[in-house]
């Protein structure tokens, strides 16, 4: 494919995205929240530094339009729009008087969440590694993980796809150790210069040990050491070691 064609494809994709995201949509049911504190401050933008241009008094209500990170775009009864911080909105109540609860990401969320994802760098069999993963929590301790990695080395380059289970020992601790076990596929592109290199696809199995360290909000550090067994088509299986370190977030 030529660059021009790709550019055209990108342009078309962008146009499609613009159409999809256009605000002209059918009216949605919006969440109505009642102010129970003396007042609710509305900022001009979704950030702590944006100026407060309006306040909503106790007893009045706001409609929640959408959320961006920890900020909610709301509309007052008078039709004015502004951004309210999640921690402020958490002090409001629903129409039935029950408190409105939000998850803004904290240690409790670190211990119990549904999704997580992150990126890593490290080394696989001596080659530089770039990896990304996503995980679905089955329980707070047990996670189903899917990962993709690429490594570039002096002898060979390659890709890895893996799927496995991770067990987190004490998820409520700031540092929680984990072990994992899984399988996957590796695609190896040898860099041999003398003989014509042949690409290989092999199945792999891995076992790993690592830990997670809660940083702040939805962020945590994750590090791991894994041992891979590559089920090659030759007589002997190959054993490769990998370490990885990266940032991850949960949701």
């Amino acid at each position, binding site marked *: 494919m030529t*660059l021009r064609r*790709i550019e055209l494809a990108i342009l078309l994709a*962008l146009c499609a995205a*613009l159409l999809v*995201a*256009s605000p002209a949509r059918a009216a949605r049911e919006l969440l109505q929240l009642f102010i129970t504190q003396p007042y609710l401050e509305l900022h001009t933008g979704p950030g702590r530094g944006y100026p407060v241009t309006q306040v909503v008094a106790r007893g009045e209500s706001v409609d929640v339009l959408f959320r961006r990170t920890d900020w909610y775009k709301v509309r007052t009864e008078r039709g004015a729009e502004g951004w309210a911080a999640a921690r402020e909105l958490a002090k409001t109540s629903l129409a039935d008087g029950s408190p409105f609860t939000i998850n803004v990401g904290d240690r409790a969320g670190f211990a119990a969440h549904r999704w997580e994802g992150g990126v890593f760098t490290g080394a696989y069999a001596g080659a530089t590694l770039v990896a990304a993963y996503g995980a679905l929590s089955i329980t707070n301790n047990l996670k189903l993980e899917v990962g993709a990695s690429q490594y570039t080395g002096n002898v060979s380059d390659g890709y890895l796809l893996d799927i496995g289970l991770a067990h987190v020992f004490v998820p409520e601790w700031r540092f929680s150790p984990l072990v994992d076990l899984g399988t996957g596929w590796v695609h190896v592109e040898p860099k041999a210069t003398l003989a014509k290199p042949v690409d290989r696809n092999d199945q792999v199995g891995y076992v790993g040990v690592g830990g997670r360290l809660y940083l702040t909000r939805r962020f945590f550090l994750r590090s791991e050491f894994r041992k891979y067994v590559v089920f090659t088509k030759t007589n002997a299986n190959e054993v490769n070691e990998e370490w990885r370190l990266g*940032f991850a977030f949960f949701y």
Partner: protein
Amino acid sequence: METRIRLLLLGTALAACSGCASMHWPWHHHKASQPVVSSADDNAPPPTVIEPQVERRKVKVPHIRAKDLEVGAYYGEISIQDFGAQPVAGLRLDYHVTEDLFFEGSYGRAKGGLTSFEELSGRARLLSDAERRFTYYNLSLGYNFLPGEVFVGRNLAMTSALYMIGGIGNVKFGGQQNFAVNFGAGFRVLPTDWLALHIDVQDLVFKSNDIGVNQLKNNLQATFGATVFF
């Protein structure tokens, strides 16, 4: 006399009977607790204390839409070291985790030009056409270090942010895969809540020996982009 005695006995028996009837014998107890109703009201419900028929209003909490994801495309110029400045186009996906931090994945393509050596020597070529394809992806972490607002005239204010970004990735060039590090800065402005315009400058750094010498390659790119939040 006989009549008097009869009357006395009869009176005693009657008194005994009425006394027995007024007593609560165990076998009478069940019956006695039954409400006494006339036969005409047999089908009517027994009178009970009126319970308030007030049900708590059930509030269905509508789902709040999150607009943390940003997807779009960019176009600009990349200076591929030794191979000239060339147009570059790419796609990007951002996930805003907090108001300060975001993850970004990007994928871009360009095509390397001719080196000075190739230009001067005439027909000598260091790389084939396919090898001149420069493709890369980056996985980065960004930090909105100068958020603010941009004013256009008197009536239009747009939220904006100057951000720093850095990460890791891979560059394929000269028929080789290379681990790459990227870092740079960008400016994002949002004319509406769902549309963002970007200006980015980034350096893609990797080690390569594509021209026979192992060296660190710096590839600076400057791009314009547009993204939508959803």
